């Protein structure tokens, strides 16, 4: 793809965004979710979702560079990203890589359009960082798996239509060798979702219970007992591809913060802090170009995904930590009068940001991956 063609694409994205009035996002979680779903649908109808997905499956058949351009232009316009984050950036790429023709025909179009929202059933109460010790079981009976167990920290499960579930299908094999990757309809009898209220006050993540849930064998993604490789593929995308999107969201937050600072009186110390956060976000933008290059060359998963994940989490926490500090003594009880800063949003963002070094594999897990697989240091085990 020639740079002029990409620049033309950027120009068309910019003018579309300028004409399309991105929705304001309400504080209330439920109302915000509705607004985001609507925005997802608008984006899809106009050809801005699935930009780098195959045309025959409902995508636009363009390159990842095009997709990155739209993400960047959305950030520039202050527009939110489409609602179905897990489907588009985490589970979706694995579906594309490992799905059969029938699975692709069934799942991709509604995933892209936002008609079906996905969640990711990986973590369990006793399987967090040690994901391979998961205990959710799926027993094959004729042409169905019977799924039993519990997942936790499942983001957006309450809003999801489908869940990518890791389940143990062969209890006799060593930890990561007996796991399969199942696509589970959340409306199946026996699936119970219980939202968990987070420190932010929102209930974005959930517990998910499976009690004798019957899953057709045709919903097995990839080989039977071979799900671990798929899980690593999904996590690789969560750590790098999702980072592209999250960076854009951080840039929108930064822009909002800066707009508020410009309205008020600020001293030189504010300039230094806001400048430092800007430098960090620019570093993330530089890393995202490398992530695109790796994806284009088929280098996912890679230990460099963990580098992106580590940098993104640090960047997010620095940005929202900086914003929090600007609230001064009003960190826990934000002012609503006499200030241009949206204190309530800042505190929520700060608290939400603490999850960035936990989800998708904790910071400590990522550091170990970098140490062992990128630097080649001796394994501890």
């Amino acid at each position, binding site marked *: 793809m020639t740079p002029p063609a990409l620049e033309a694409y950027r120009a068309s994205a910019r003018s579309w965004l300028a004409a399309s009035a991105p929705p304001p996002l309400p504080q209330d979680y439920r109302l915000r979710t509705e607004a985001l779903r609507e925005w997802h649908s608008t984006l899809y109808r106009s050809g801005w979702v699935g930009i780098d997905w195959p045309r025959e499956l409902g995508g636009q058949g363009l390159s990842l560079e095009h997709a990155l351009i739209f993400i*960047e232009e959305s*950030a*520039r316009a202050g527009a939110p990203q489409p609602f179905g984050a897990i489907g588009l950036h985490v589970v979706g790429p694995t579906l594309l890589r490992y799905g059969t023709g029938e699975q692709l025909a069934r799942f991709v179009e509604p995933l892209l359009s936002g008609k079906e929202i996905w969640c990711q059933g990986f973590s369990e109460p006793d399987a967090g960082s040690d994901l391979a010790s998961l205990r959710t079981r799926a027993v094959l009976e004729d042409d169905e798996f019977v799924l039993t167990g519990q997942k936790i920290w499942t983001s957006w499960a309450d809003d999801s239509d489908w869940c990518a579930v890791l389940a143990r299908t062969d209890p006799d094999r060593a930890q990561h060798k007996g796991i399969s990757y199942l696509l589970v309809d959340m409306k199946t009898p026996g699936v119970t979702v219980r939202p968990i209220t987070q420190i932010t006050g929102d209930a974005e993540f959930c517990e998910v219970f499976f009690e004798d849930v019957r899953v057709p064998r045709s919903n097995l993604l990839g080989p039977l007992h071979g799900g671990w490789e798929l899980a690593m593929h999904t996590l690789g995308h969560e750590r790098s591809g999702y980072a592209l999107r999250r960076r854009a969201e951080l*840039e929108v937050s*930064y*822009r909002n913060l*800066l707009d508020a*600072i*410009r309205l008020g009186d*600020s001293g*030189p110390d*504010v*300039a*230094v*802090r*806001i*400048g*430092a956060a*800007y*430098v960090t*976000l*620019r*570093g993330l*933008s*530089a*890393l995202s*170009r*490398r992530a695109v*290059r790796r994806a284009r060359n088929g280098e996912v998963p890679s230990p*460099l995904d963990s*580098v992106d994940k*580590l*940098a993104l989490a640090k960047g997010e926490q620095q940005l929202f930590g900086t914003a929090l500090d600007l609230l001064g003594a009003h960190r826990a009880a934000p002012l609503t009068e006499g200030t241009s800063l949206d204190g309530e949003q800042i505190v929520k963002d700060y608290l939400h940001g603490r999850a960035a070094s936990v989800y998708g594999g904790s910071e*400590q897990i*990522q*550091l*170990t991956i*970098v*140490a*062992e697989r*990128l*630097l*080649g*240091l*001796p*394994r*501890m085990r």
Partner: protein
Amino acid sequence: MIEISASDFAKEFEAAAARLLDVQMARTPIREQLEQSGWSEPLWTSVVDAGWLDVMLPQHLGGLGLGIGDVSGIFTAAGRYLLPGPLFDNAVAVPLAVGQATRDKHLTNLIAGRKRISLADGAASGQAGDSRPVVRDGRLFGSVDLVRLGGAADHFLVVVEEPEPTLVMADAGMPGVSLHRRRTFDSAAEHARIVFDGAEFEPLFENCKGDTARAAAVVAELRDAARLLFSCEIAGTARHLLDSAVLYAKEREQFGRPIGAFQAIQHLLATLATRQITLEAACEQGLNSWDSEPASRYVAATTAKAIAAEVGRVVGEGALQVHGGIAFTREFPLHRWHVHVLGLQGRYGDQHTIAAELGNLLVGKEFALW
């Protein structure tokens, strides 16, 4: 590794530069000279003979007429091998200046005569504006501190600040120019303070309105280039520090196993690697956006320098920690790389001064963010 999509040459130049430095820096006479004085004439001659100073030189002056992206690999290699020499000055500042000067004859002659030139820019050390060089009654007054390799230069490419920034040439040997060497901990970069007290000079631009704007634009470009290429040099130096620490962690044993098997060491090194890779990516971003409009060029080069300033220092400190007591000795050479990044950290602004500079721009007015 820094990869630049816009250049086919950068990697080749970097590999060739590394090969040359690998051989030259291992030669006993050169090592002895560097240890004694921090300067080796044969080493610098080999760099000149290898054509490093010709990469960006315009073709009509016998150069290759290539750009910043192409030459950047040489800076990474120079950082990795701690090449002492006024590399930025002669390989980048001089070609940029001569390519755009409207009175270029004098500088063209100096280039043809292989004269050694050091850039004297008060902005490099953040020197107070009122002490920087000015022209009064047709003569040069003021001073520039921390001129790299000032003592080894025949001529100075001087940034004059008032009223608008412009560039002039001054002969190191002429009356009114005096040099005061600074004591330095950095074996790869001797520093000097240059004082101009009524010195004669050769302007590179005419004294007319069009030329004033042109000169100011060249000075801005030169400072962006300095920020970006010193970032590349820091990336090379820090890469050496990180690689050394990783290698040491694999070899050094305590408690019956390599120290790199301990999580405390692993996480320290992985954190450094994450920072280092971010720096290399920021250098790429700066190099790839070099030919965009001046505002984007400025932002990309400036953020790269802020990241380099912080990362170079942190990697140096972390590498020392991993090595333990041995790295605290003069005999073990790690300190040379560590101190070299300290020298570059503050050049054209460290992470704090740049954060303030960018922050004031961001808070003060509408400013293209990304």
